[in-house]
């Protein structure tokens, strides 16, 4: 199945309305699309974070498929356990049908504290789809920096002051780490390009081994923008070259959403409160532009439109 329009997506909803995600949070859009593609026979493994606490406030749950959360740093190991249980029980005839096992974990739970468990699972080749929803900080605990926080961004632990203008380090190359483990399938995505996302989920689920999808999640609360801008900001991340959409399959990279004319990064930065202080620091914006140019070159994106 190739998803091109809304009509291609199943009408079934396995992610229920009424959750507690912030207005404008694309984690809900992501969950909805993932479950439309993966269908009823899916099991969700959640790491601690926004995606977990906002969707399962006891006694309610937004998940119409089986869902499990054990802790913050062990989502990958938890998924390995579910996978192993299925494999063993199917072999022994205790179960007669398989399920899609899908992890949802934030950037903190993936790039930092959960990296060890993720590395273990990827190295073993455990068969599940790991989706890192990357809102570029620890949002659940109140917007602290993570290894995935971008250069120049304000967070509550990279605050602004005479000595500091936000985070001084570029994002950790998380997907690069996954690829270094020889995952069968890896891809970047953003809910602003839902069909690109849907196609990647479908591919990731079909792989015989671990698959990793790194999804950018513009966070209205932590990035400080109006909720009506969620989709627009995600699109700008792609169009500025800061979040190239590509996939990696059998050792080959392929750009899935071409950007023939790139927008300057300032278009993306100026809409977000977390970068507001950069507006009078042009040298830092130049650094970020350079970072985008490098990515653009790597993934064959076009020149900046004049």
């Amino acid at each position, binding site marked *: 199945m190739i998803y091109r329009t809304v009509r291609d997506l199943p009408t079934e909803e396995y992610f229920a309305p009424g959750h507690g995600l912030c207005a404008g949070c694309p984690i809900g859009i992501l969950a909805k699309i993932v479950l439309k593609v993966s269908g009823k026979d899916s099991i969700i493994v959640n790491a601690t974070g926004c995606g977990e606490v906002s969707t*399962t*406030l006891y006694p309610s*749950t937004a998940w119409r498929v089986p869902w499990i959360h*054990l*802790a913050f740093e062990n989502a990958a190991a938890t998924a*390995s*356990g579910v996978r*192993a249980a299925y494999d063993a*029980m199917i072999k022994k005839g*205790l179960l007669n049908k398989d399920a899609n096992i899908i992890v949802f974990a934030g950037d903190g739970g993936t790039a930092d504290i959960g990296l060890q468990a993720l590395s273990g699972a990827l190295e073993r080749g455990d068969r599940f789809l790991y989706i890192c929803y990357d809102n570029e900080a620890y949002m659940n605990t109140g917007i602290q920096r993570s290894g995935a926080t971008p250069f120049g961004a304000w967070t509550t632990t990279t605050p602004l002051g005479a000595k500091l203008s936000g985070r001084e380090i570029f994002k950790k190359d998380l997907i690069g780490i996954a690829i270094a483990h020889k995952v069968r399938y890896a891809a970047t995505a953003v809910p602003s390009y839902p069909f690109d996302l849907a196609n990647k989920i479908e591919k990731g689920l079909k792989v015989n081994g671990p698959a990793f999808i790194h999804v950018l999640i513009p966070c209205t609360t932590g990035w400080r923008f109006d909720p009506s801008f969620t989709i627009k900001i995600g699109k700008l991340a792609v169009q500025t070259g800061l979040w190239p959409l590509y996939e990696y399959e059998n050792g080959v990279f392929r750009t899935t959403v071409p950007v023939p004319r790139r927008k300057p990064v300032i278009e993306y930065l100026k809409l977000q409160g977390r970068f507001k202080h950069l507006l009078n620091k042009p040298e830092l914006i130049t650094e970020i532009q350079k970072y985008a140019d490098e990515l653009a070159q790597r993934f064959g994106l076009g020149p900046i439109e004049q």
Partner: protein
Amino acid sequence: MQKLKQIRQTLSGNYAVAYAVKQVDVDVISAYPITPQTTMVEKLSEYVATGELQAEFIPVESEHSALSVVTAAAATGARVFTSTSSQGLLLMHEILFITAALRLPVVMAVANRAVSAPINIWNDHSDAMDQRDTGWIQIFAESSQEAYDTMIQAYRIAEDLRVRLPVMVNFDGYILTHTYEPVDTLPDEHVKEFTPRVKPPFRLNPDEPVSIGTLAPPDYYYEVKYQEINAIENSLPVIEEVSKKYGDLSGRYYSNVEQTSVNDADIVLVSMGALSGTARHVVRELRQHNIKAGLIRLRLFRPFPIKSIIDLISDAKAVGIIDRAVSPGAVGGPVFMEIAAIMKLYGIDVPIVNFIAGLGGRDVTPSDIKYMFDELQLTAISGKPKRPVYYIGLRGWNP
């Protein structure tokens, strides 16, 4: 009942446990090597490699992941096993609470070992005592035979729908894990019959979706926690029932609190684990000299078998509690504090003394035990202990 034909094998404690795990036919094993547990995991991976045991063996990158893997596999409905020691158990600590609160029947063998620093790979009970508030059932075996028998019982207890709690089977590092002894093992089919598959009340199943491990606000957390407390309290009669049934099958009966010559004893020692063998030997010797000594061996530590202990110590003139772990800054070791508390609560006015012994693999010899009984005799005469805590065998400790 017709007598069962058992198979006598020469097994180390680790192999005895691995053999039991194979016989109960687990589905998922995940573990990480740590001395002195390692040979158990090696044996299990061998069983899986040869096909003697049909299970998924997940060689994880840490103990934290090992327990996460088996907890999740149990939530999916599989029968699981993991094992560890010392630092490994400490690294699992966070997940131990989660397994118990989610009421998942995980069974774990712990080859007891001291904890760092200084790094020490020898036996004491510091690792297991650290886990006493996690909600796991904790059993301490005295011999490899008992470790084997207890493993089989552990699955029956953990999976019982009246219990649904994880069970930790403790056995002393090296003293049991690496010592070869004759172990009587049951035929496979009898183990299988004794540990039938129980349909779990919930599991990760797309046909009946549930959310496991959700966020519980102040309005619910307390009640959920209470259900767990209730479950472990109510597990006591189930543990007794399973021991009885296992005894009927194997001829080996165990009770939660085992006693030697306690009925008419004036001075009583309380111990746990392999050291109890030495203590029992000393009790027999003292009895030959008409000294009224007795021994209580705690087999079950969680839930704490309060009633049985009370019944046994009420008539003594002095009671000594051996701890192979410490609680720095507290009045004494963990077992001592537990017994002191219940004595106060049940109005039992018998003088008690705490003997800290065998930390980090320091030998506890028959003469150490004799010394403890000597002190208990003095305490019985004076009616008052000289001091609450004795550090047995510690160089430079000069009371």
